[in-house]
């Protein structure tokens, strides 16, 4: 990773340009490879420019939560593996890793893209537990969007496991039924630097940001809808800036969705 002085990043952006030559609202190149981990029920490796993450879905049988006896469970986790950045340390997830996981989780959950009622096997007793774990392998900025793309791509390729006579997952058999996922929910992240709004911040831009806003969007009946938001950074945003970002998110979300089939 080449370190760039945040002050330089800010100066360049003030002139309406970016250090890597992208337009202010431009995303880096996206590439997605699915089914890269045979032991997982679904998986995807996503590259967003030089950022690389790997998501794996594991599906198991478990007991439902007391307040939702007829609903399956969806859980997203993120691991900032120390090989991904000199800034990452081993140990339990820090607040940034927790935030990435919860923001990615929120977009999928709130869009109701996975019908948790359909993940119920026997009410109060047995439900499907869907775990999405994202390993960050190379951090070059905007881990939320990369993780969101990977989580969705992995979920959309996941196959439901087969149960044996005891009602447990039969690991010798490969499932063929896909996990039903609709609406393709994705997170899109924008940052404010000075008075400019830019999309898909690189590492250097993440270090220079004033404020960040991540917006989750998905498709419903042919329309783009919002399903989640999360502000970050230690400075405020005005109502107009939020409005600008939300409209950009609708547009960029639709563009990113084209990468997910």
């Amino acid at each position: 990773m080449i370190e760039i002085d945040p002050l330089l990043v800010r100066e360049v952006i003030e002139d309406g340009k970016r250090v890597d030559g992208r337009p202010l609202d431009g995303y880096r190149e996206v590439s997605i490879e699915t089914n890269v981990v045979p032991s997982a029920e679904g998986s995807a490796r996503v590259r967003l420019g030089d950022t690389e993450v790997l998501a794996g879905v594991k599906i198991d049988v478990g007991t439902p939560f007391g307040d939702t006896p007829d609903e399956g469970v969806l859980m997203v986790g993120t691991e900032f593996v120390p090989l991904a950045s000199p800034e990452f340390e081993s140990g339990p997830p820090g607040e940034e890793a927790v935030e990435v996981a919860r923001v990615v989780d929120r977009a999928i959950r709130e869009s109701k893209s996975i019908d948790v009622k359909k993940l119920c096997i026997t009410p109060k007793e047995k439900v499907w537990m869907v775990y999405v774990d994202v390993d960050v392998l190379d951090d070059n900025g905007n881990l939320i969007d990369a993780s969101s793309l990977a989580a969705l791509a992995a979920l959309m390729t996941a196959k439901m496991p087969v149960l044996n006579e005891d009602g447990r997952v039969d690991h010798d058999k490969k499932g063929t039924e896909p996990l039903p996922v609709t609406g393709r929910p994705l997170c899109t992240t924008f940052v404010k630097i000075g008075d400019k709004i830019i999309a898909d911040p690189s590492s250097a831009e993440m270090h220079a940001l004033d404020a960040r806003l991540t917006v989750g969007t998905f498709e419903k009946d042919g329309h783009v809808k919002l399903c989640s938001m999360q502000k970050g950074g230690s400075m405020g945003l005005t109502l107009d800036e939020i409005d600008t970002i939300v409209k950009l998110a609708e547009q960029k979300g639709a563009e990113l969705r084209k990468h997910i089939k």
Partner: protein
Amino acid sequence: MELELIKNGTRIDGRKLDELRPIYAAVGVLKNANGSAMFKLGNTTAIAGVFGPRKVFPKHQEEAERAILRTKYNMAPFATTERNRPGTSRRSTEISMVTRQALTPLVFLDEFPKTAIDVHIEVLQADASTRCVGINAAALALADAGIPMRDLISSCSAGKVGEHTVLDVAGKEDTEGELDLPVAYYPRKKQITLLQMDGVTDSREVKEIIKLAVKGCEKIYDEQKKALRSKYKLEESE
């Protein structure tokens, strides 16, 4: 949703669509902390205590040019219907972080290099909007600690119940409503320093919901100022 949460513009708890729950705010409620405050919004109660500026432990967190602001949001085990497991959770880690980001623009951190300002928020009773109530208490506690600040921060949430846009979602509206959007507002700069959203909407509607939340924050701001003034009354000059 069989239960009718809104009837003729009146909500299930009797409030109007754009009405906050009753507010209670008091500063200087703890003896040990350098500054403290209690804030209530209906049945949601939080207490905040501030320590510092003080020496930084562990030392490696120290910053040469400025103070560091540390925030800890915690919910008491008895604050919810079902016992809430004590200790840090993924949820409380996230809320502690967004609370810190919401408060940071306020504080003149450059004035106190190599120190830490610690803000501890304890939710004693939870009925929705606990992060907002915690932020309201924290802003008052920072002021009570005598820490130089640019303004106060006020926080509340707005949401959607059925097709209605409502202020300060609570009770059944929280569990059965369609959308919850907490905001923290920096009145002097007219900036939003915390913004989160759970639920489905579109770009036009979300603007209205944010505006409604800001209106609620402005009302809370007045109550916060009143609470500060009632402790720090200027004596009339002879």
